[in-house]
């Protein structure tokens, strides 16, 4: 195939345009994704704060905490005493903290929505 100067210039301009397009997309895309995710988390937190303080919610929360406490009693019983008090304490507190965190993030908003 014969290539003249006009074709070469068009090919070069295409390559140049492609560089603009790709660099434009790839630099903006990650920032957009991260910002969208951040905004979604913020929106979820706002929703939780707005809907939380009702009598029904407090009752649900108490039920949920009672259920969690019952689970921990069971969990404590299942741990062997031979593992030693420090380990026992550590594991229990860790489980309790993680359970409370789970309640805060997932179960409380769910109860709130249900009520």
């Amino acid at each position, binding site marked *: *195939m014969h*290539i003249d*100067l006009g074709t*070469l*210039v068009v*090919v*070069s*301009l*295409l*390559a*140049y345009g*492609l*560089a*603009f*397009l*790709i*660099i*434009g*997309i*790839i*630099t*903006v*895309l*990650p*920032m957009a*994704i*991260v910002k969208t995710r951040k905004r979604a988390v913020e929106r979820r937190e706002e929703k939780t704060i707005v809907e939380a303080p009702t009598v029904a919610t407090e009752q649900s929360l108490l039920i949920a905490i009672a259920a969690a406490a019952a689970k921990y009693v069971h969990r404590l019983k299942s741990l062997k005493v031979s593992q030693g008090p420090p380990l026992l304490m550590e594991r229990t507190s860790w489980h309790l903290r993680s359970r409370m965190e789970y309640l805060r993030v997932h179960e409380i908003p769910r109860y709130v929505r249900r009520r």
Partner: protein
Amino acid sequence: MDLQTLLSIFIQQSGFGTLIESNVEFFIRILFMVWGFVLLYLGLRRVEPLLLIPLGISMILANAPGLHLVQYHCYMCSKDSAPSMLEGLKGLANIIELDNVYRVCTPDATALLAWIYHIFVRTEIGPVLIFFGIGALSDFRPMLSYPVASIIGASAQLGIITVTAIAFMLGFKVNEAMAIGVIGGADGPTTIYTATNIAPYLVGPLTIAVYSYIALIPVIQPPIARLLIPRKYRAIKMPPPREVSSKEIILFWIAMIIIIAFLVPHALPLVIALALGNIIRECGITEVTARYGKTVPEALLDIATIITMLGVGATLSYDFLSQFVASQRAEAYLEFLFKAFLVLGLGLVAFIISTVGGIALAWLLYFVTRGKVNPLIGCAGVSAVPISARVSQREASRVDPSVYILYHALGPNVAGVIGTAIVAGFYIGFIKQVLPGLVP
């Protein structure tokens, strides 16, 4: 055996034997050796010593009469005979299309430098490994922290497209013109990668041109910047950059690989190497960053650079070039040397136009953002990392020492590396698709 015969054998096997066999060969070898010594001298004078010292040594060794470290064995092959076999041989042999026949040249079993060229440069392993090291060495946060300025990295490829057209008008073939244009990107590994793909016989002059001008950026760019940017605009302070997380950088590379794979697949080896190196740096896993993160940007990068430069130096030799010239006459070699010096001149033009392209877009951003962008960061669109970014900072500091734009300038700087890879990948794809016969 008498003394005269012994003496004759001694002379034949020495370097002087070449002089007796062919004056042209001896003359060309000496010419290239002198060129090699000049590069070695420049390297020893601290002009890009990491590159020019191995390059100079390789040229001297490759051209030493009687040593034949780049010796090839050539034979003729009819165009009808076994085209599939010739296609298969392309990886290891240089196949040159002459009038009615193909000249097939394979390296001699003991031609050390020829094998280094074939294994590390021709197969693209060398440039790709250098990019791997550069990826592990570079910080892409500045690019993502101020994405608008990264577009300068694309704009500074103006030198590539302009010089491609100029070289074509000066009589270079399309593939040669494109390979010469890529010098304007100011990116050594990409230039080598492009040249080996579309014009392997020009890889030597192109490499010398690109690395010489990268070393000369602190001399070339400041006058252009002072000419195009009035003093008061050089002192513009830019807003503090946004914080960029490692997660964002990894996301950026994933997006980049997917987009490049679909739009410019020929740039993918370079981009993947860059991505892999940078992910090693950013992944945050102690085992990886402590081990690979130490080896890749130091030992691996150094080894890849030395071997690639030895391979490139081998291409600037009588033995290598004799495969590509149609007739073994002095004129054919002198024509190559003329082309090589023309390449050096065009390289300088490409660098200047790329700098102007970068500054022009930086000015546009200055107006769009209502004075938040210092036009000096336009110099950094030329992808010589981090030399051109340092030039921007130095020029700003000269006007006002409290101005800090180095971080902002590094954004277009690393974006320029990607921009050059995209344009080069597009060129390679075009030549391989439309004009495959031009590539030996």
